[in-house]
């Protein structure tokens, strides 16, 4: 796993405007992980089948993933996305079978 392929294309930076960063400044980011498109997702399929049995006949497909909310402290908002992406590449996601996206969902400067 390398850190060289990082791009900012998946970061949505909605709420962060203050550029004064202190150790107490926190940013909450969310890493969302899904099985890669070409990987069968038997869990998602079982859940989709169960929804259909409950009468939700409209369900065409379900993909089961997971998400992690990570609160960062003392991080420049401009670097938070890259930091989260490195965390995803090193641990949170397994790149052999999973894709991930990163978003920043809130920031706080006390």
């Amino acid at each position: 796993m390398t850190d060289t392929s990082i791009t900012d294309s998946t970061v949505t930076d909605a709420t962060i405007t203050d550029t004064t960063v202190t150790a107490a400044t926190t940013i909450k980011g969310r890493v969302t992980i899904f099985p890669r498109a070409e990987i069968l997702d038997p869990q998602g399929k079982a859940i989709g089948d169960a929804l259909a049995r409950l009468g939700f006949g409209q369900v065409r497909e379900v993909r089961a993933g997971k998400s992690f909310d990570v609160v960062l402290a003392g991080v420049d908002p401009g670097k938070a996305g890259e930091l989260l992406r490195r965390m995803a590449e090193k641990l949170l996601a397994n790149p052999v079978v999973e894709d991930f996206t990163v978003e920043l969902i809130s920031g706080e400067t006390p």
Partner: protein
Amino acid sequence: MRCGVVVFPGSNCDHDVYHVLKHVLGQDAVFLWHDEADLHGCDLVVLPGGFAYGDYLRAGAMAALSPIMAEVRRHAAAGGPVLGICNGFQMLLEAGLLPGAMRRNRDLRFLCQDVWLRVERDDLAFTSRYARGQVLRMPIAHAEGNYVDRDEALDALEKAGGVVFRYASPGGETAEGWNPNGSARAIAGVVNAGGNVLGMMPHPERCAEQVLGGEDGLGLFASLVAAAVEVRHA
């Protein structure tokens, strides 16, 4: 041979492996605690089955970052034998010491049953007591043993002779019906390019004495002992 069996919080096959090495084969065997970055001079390192760290995040993901794993990497890089069984195989994948990844079993069920394995390599320190094409009967017990990798990576693995065991029929035929968990190309065991790091989902330590219903797994440990004797006399 001095054998180290690494104990993680949640390991549950550690004593079985220790028993085979120490009492069935008469080797010097010790337990190694995951939190201690020291192999205590062991020639062989075994990562046993179980549910290390409760399989948090992904099976093997937390264990792959345990302090002892830095030493296991060093041992592997120096050519020392490392055997990962079941959860230990998952750790080797998560640690990047072997290629690929595990998914949930095809039918989403925990499988606890005997399977048949075809031996694909008999020229390794792990398999010299077997013959290529020989069929072994071994138990599996896992929910996430559905081996997968990108097609080109699987091609490269096969070309490099990385597939050591495949799920097969009692007659040695690979067919989807004999593949219990949906693993790509019926792969049950994988070795690294150096031939010294082996990961496998089936449990050889659970079939190393007749009293347990079979001895097909004993050959794997006996091969390692024979290889260590060769090293000593080389």
